[in-house]
């Protein structure tokens, strides 16, 4: 065990200052120190994507990042994507299109999809399948997840056009 480091994390718009060992993984700081339990742990080896969050506008697997590496970063988790009164279109779409069953992969899936749609607002089915391939789901067989992401994309695009 080595000395703890002081780090600052901006999570879902709130600034947190905390102490963590250099070896502590970001997912553990989020879940255990900050009580942000939306991102889950499915493997701790970067394969499953259950721990996916956004860090400085990139999708990352927070089980494979040290908390210290995230010092000063802007972080968004599933908890920061929408509010109960104003859900993110992806949150609506996953429910509407039955894109989840046990829900364990869902926070990571939706968070990843949110970034995918930022980078590629109007993806084809193939692009969604490629862009989501880092997130595993054991329950749904993905078909409805893909449907939900495509539906959310068109929802977001329609809303944007209406606003212009």
């Amino acid at each position, binding site marked *: 065990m080595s000395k703890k480091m002081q780090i600052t994390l901006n999570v879902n718009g709130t600034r947190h200052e905390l102490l963590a060992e250099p070896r502590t993984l970001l997912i553990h700081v989020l879940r255990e120190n900050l009580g942000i339990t939306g991102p889950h742990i499915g493997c701790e080896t970067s394969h499953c994507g259950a721990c996916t969050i956004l860090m400085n506008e990139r999708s990352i697997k927070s089980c494979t990042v040290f908390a210290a590496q995230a010092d000063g970063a802007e972080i968004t988790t599933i908890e920061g994507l929408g509010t109960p009164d104003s859900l993110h279109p992806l949150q609506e779409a*996953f*429910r509407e299109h039955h894109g989840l069953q046990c*829900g364990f992969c869902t926070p990571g899936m939706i968070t990843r999809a949110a970034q995918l749609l930022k980078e590629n607002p109007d993806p084809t089915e193939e692009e969604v399948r490629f862009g989501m391939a880092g997130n595993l789901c*054991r329950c749904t067989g993905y078909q409805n997840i893909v449907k939900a992401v495509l539906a959310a994309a068109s929802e977001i695009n329609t809303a944007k056009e209406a606003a212009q």
Partner: protein
Amino acid sequence: MNDLTPDRDDRTANLKGIGSARRRVEDARFTQGKGNYVDDIKLPGMLFGDFVRSPYAHARVVSVDTSAAMALDGVVAVLTAKDLEPLGLHWMPTLAGDKQMVLADGKVLFQGQEVAYVVARDRYVAADAVELVEVEYEELPVITDPFEALNSDTVLREDLQPGADGAHGPRRHANHIFLWEEGDKTATEEVIGSADVVVEEMIYYHRTHPCPLETCGCVASMDKVNGKLTVYGTFQAPHVVRTVASLLSGIDEHNIRVVSPDIGGGFGNKVGVYPGYVCSIVASIVTGLPVKWVEDRMENLMATAFARDYWMKGRISATKEGKITALEAHVTADHGAFDACADPTKFPAGFFHICTGSYDIPVAYVGVDGVYTNKAPGGVAYRCSFRVTEAAYFIERMIEILAIELGMDAAELRRINFIRADQFPYHSALGWEYDSGDYQTAWDKALKAVDYDGLRTEQAARVEAFRRGETRRLIGIGLTHFTEIVGAGPVKNCDILGMGMFDSCEIRIHPTGSAIARLGTISQGQGHATTFAQILASEIGIPADKITVEEGDTDTAPYGLGTYGSRSTPVAGAATALAGRKIRAKAQMIAAYLLEVHDDDVEFDIDRFVVKGAPERFKTMADIAYAAYNQAIPGVEPGLEAVSYYDPPNMTYPFGAYICVMEIDVDTGEAEIRQFYALDDCGTRINPMVIEGQVHGGLTEALAIAMGQEIAYDDMGNVKTGTLMDFFIPTTWETPHYTTDHTETPSPHHPIGAKGVGESPNVGGVPAFSNAVHDALRPFGLRQSHMPHDHWRIWKAAHDLGLHG
């Protein structure tokens, strides 16, 4: 309330009852990151447990030195078998009537076996301490092959008396667990011996693992002041865990509360009782603090329950015209180091004797030998009813091979052997009574949907093109018609550790016309809170949106045997419907009183009771609920509640027709799924959206199993596939698009005719994928090639057939 009479369709739609594609009530919390899974639970003062595990598959444990670990700052305790022995907890009973070491007692029998349990302030310190426990091992010969085990002098289970019977009768070798037989052996041998055509084949269904996205874990919390133990955990059967915990610990059952919170998928992995649970409970009792244990992925794949590992040697006979005359199966079942299968007690090979499948086979015999090896224990039903996927794979491969032998089209061979619709209820040669089915209709619909004849023509043309050297890709058409057997089960022959496999539902109607229902089952993603409310809505006329469904807390839920083997809808779903009917019977009396007519003069109509012949005179269920609590009704107790425990009279027999069209590249061994058509008949359909989701998910697990997923061992008993790097889980990229379809043949004995569906796609999917691979190479002489059909194995099969020049 009596002012409006919206039309009946509107009223029905408003209920969102049976048949409605109701959106799920669970989703709001899951999509917002507000699920509550075991690892999300944080209690004051909570400690973390972690295991020291064996690196060897078979070794004597010479010594365990915990002193360095104990000296580490933050370590609270290190438990070994010696610490558990005075409590009688160093071994525990398995669900299969065997016993299993909780912590290594003198030797280890599989890689990853639990040797010591460290309890520390946080998970990092616990992991450090695990490294500091010094264990000295003395290696022993390793057996990973069940056939070798039955011929070896190496005794794996030295704790068992040589020659003494096991839980399922005589053992003929030290490494033998049981021989279980069903059917008429002599008659079967006679028919096969004199048949026109006989094929014999060894079909191996490899070892794999359910691998839910959430691993197994628990939080045990002993409240020493109140003497109450609470255990939160990933339990598919919370009441069974409570009873087992009481029997093991001696704590009275009323002082134990077991809670299954949200569960991140189960698929059979979370049925068993694992050493992690026992050690966490002991550690909490010892320290007086809550203790959390959550296994990591490698531990999950290496040590908690595997599935399959069945070597199935079959013989099937037929007339020259293709009428099947007999079926025989000799199975060698690799159970690993302890027999920890989660089968109903009387069925050590589960329901494998459903292996006559969808076919009218006059005589059959099955013999299953259970064998110990140096592999992890388990043998759970990974998204299937007990050993049913093994059975379905076996018969669907045997049929294909028989078709080759007969020179017959495999679809036609199935057709002429189906159990006909007029034969139901059908008594199978191996003792089952199939409740209902119409296989021919489903089969015709499926063949037509994919243009089967067109596909065969295209396939033949492709073979010709291949022979001419114009392509290196072949087409395979994978056919399957499966029959499942689910809904365990009738208490007269189904129990687990002596507990009958009924299930239960308790309903309370609130005065303002909403309700809560509690069940003995537990959802792991199936959406019970959504679908059970739908059953009730149709039964009692209260909208599903006004019915809360709760499961998983043994302090509040009625006793039930839990969720696995697709038993929730057949058993708890039936209990729900019947409890609803009790509510309705009482509501009828109240309605009659309020309407000032005789009980027999009112009838139920969607959401109300109406006076017969005068539908404008009615009382809604909300009116009735209010009166039940607020009005003195002569001869009727106040309140509106009911409870029902349902002991099913029979199993249910869902079935389906699946067709997979695959292209394989002979040179790379890659397989591309071009089309997958799945027709399911699960009887009455409660929520078509949820059913479709279950089918997609089950097919994807079948894809994984057939095409690459495997728990593989080397000769030293090392697990070669212990991470998600090596253990195949399909991503969005490999997973095809599925076309779903259905027919609807209700179960005659289930109160609403529902049969259950969650596992059908796995049972039918595996043979469909595997048959497609075989069918692609069939024109070149392939009869049988073992799963999983990863690129290498497909390439190798093509190579062995001489297709690489």
